[in-house]
């Protein structure tokens, strides 16, 4: 572990994300969105955003293990959890939440899984950290913080209480 990331106040970053989200939802006239957190770190961030925004629809959870594009290379993630998404996402406005946006492959997989539950009206993406390094044409609508990290570095959110960011050399 290194760098001064431990000093970052994650809770206040999430507070600011919630403010930006509230503003965007208002601009788009969305009053009852469905929030879905990506296992595991994204779900921790989503739990806080869901509470801060006072959303009424229960928080959804998504585990993208069965939708990953690297199954043939690395096999199944043994820590896979069940996804809990309302059986019908038809017509919903979805807020997808993840902890770290990097290559974009996780988000691609999450979008594919969501669309197997139905056709939402819209999806916005909120991430705690955007560390660059995209391999797919995907961008987040709400970004908590940007980090400029070399590919040799890994950033990881630990939690659920307290939330902390660590970077490691890989």
């Amino acid at each position, binding site marked *: 572990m290194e760098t001064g990331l431990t000093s970052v106040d994650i809770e206040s970053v999430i507070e600011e994300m919630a403010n930006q989200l509230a503003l965007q939802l208002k601009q788009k006239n969305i009053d009852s969105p469905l929030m879905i957190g990506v296992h595991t770190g994204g779900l921790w961030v989503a739990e806080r955003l869901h509470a801060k925004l006072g959303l009424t629809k229960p928080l959804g959870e998504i585990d993208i293990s*069965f*939708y990953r594009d690297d*199954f043939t*290379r690395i096999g*199944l993630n043994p820590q896979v*959890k069940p996804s809990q998404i309302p*059986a019908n996402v*038809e017509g919903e406005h979805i807020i997808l939440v993840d902890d770290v946006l990097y290559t974009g492959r996780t988000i691609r997989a999450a979008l594919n*899984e969501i669309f197997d539950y139905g056709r939402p009206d819209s999806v916005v993406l909120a991430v705690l950290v955007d560390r660059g390094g995209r391999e797919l044409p995907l961008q987040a609508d709400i970004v908590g913080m940007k980090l400029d990290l070399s590919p040799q570095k890994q950033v990881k959110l630990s939690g659920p209480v307290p939330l902390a960011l660590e970077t490691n050399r890989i």
Partner: protein
Amino acid sequence: MNSSKQTASTSFKAPDSSSLQLNDQGRLRHFLTTENLSKDILTEIMDVAESFSSVADQAVKKVPVLRGKTIVNLFFEDSTRTRTTFELAAKRLSADVINLNIATSATSKGESILDTIRNLEAMHADMFVVRHGDSGAAHFIARHVAPHVSVINAGDGRHAHPTQAMLDMFSIRREKKEFKGLKVAIIGDILHSRVARSQIHALNTLGVQEVRVIAPSTLLPSDTKSLGVQVHGDLRSGLDGVDVIIMLRLQRERMGGALLPSEHEYFECFGLTAEKLAYAKPDVTVMHPGPINRGVEMDADVADGKHSIILQQVTNGIAIRMAVMTLALGANRASDSS
């Protein structure tokens, strides 16, 4: 069948079960028997199955994880339900599935079992799901397939039926939450039952308090006690205080006469009725692998009653088969790249 000539000297008689199933990283590569698999592996199968159970909630009841893989259902013996759930499981994983009923296929024209396998491998099959009337058939195939191919045992002779056992374990876990402290009774034709053997191994590995088998002595194998079970000849005393009852089907097609006086008499002694059920715990769970012989193994009102989870077992069977297929093919790929 020609295959017996090739196989007699190798593996049909004494199937070994341990190292063949795991890859060099200890991951499940073939699933042939529950015997000698660790509690961790059995638990992992159930955990992954739990994750797959949400796929049935999706509008598109499919995940792309095995897209581009070819799974061959190789059935040397009929079984509509098992074959259908394997087929459905494979399709929900987006694999391509071929069903081969070998009884009506090339082996009846004289092709050996290994030639059949080689031909299917030449068509780039990734997995064989094997049902065979001879004990050890799936082990034999697993020992001879190409390195990238996985084998799942869908029932071999009187030996093993591990996916049925695991769907039963999964069903028990969903009902009772944990295995510790459970008393489980398995009732009926233990002698001919590959399911019972696989269940007994799994239940003991998962750490239930007690496994009882309740059967007439003519339907018990000679080595029953060495399996780690208590034997009861009387249904009422055997059911006393049990948490889970697993009924077995009376396998009339495997019986060579004289083992049973009559179905009517069997029902009188070993058929599950509401009156006998009252000896078990009030929240007892009743299971049956199907197909049920109503009025032989159990009364219709027990089969359809509030303790019965017979239809949930069928649903759980799809998730368990999805889990086993994904784990096995995943382990194969993972070991390729290492």
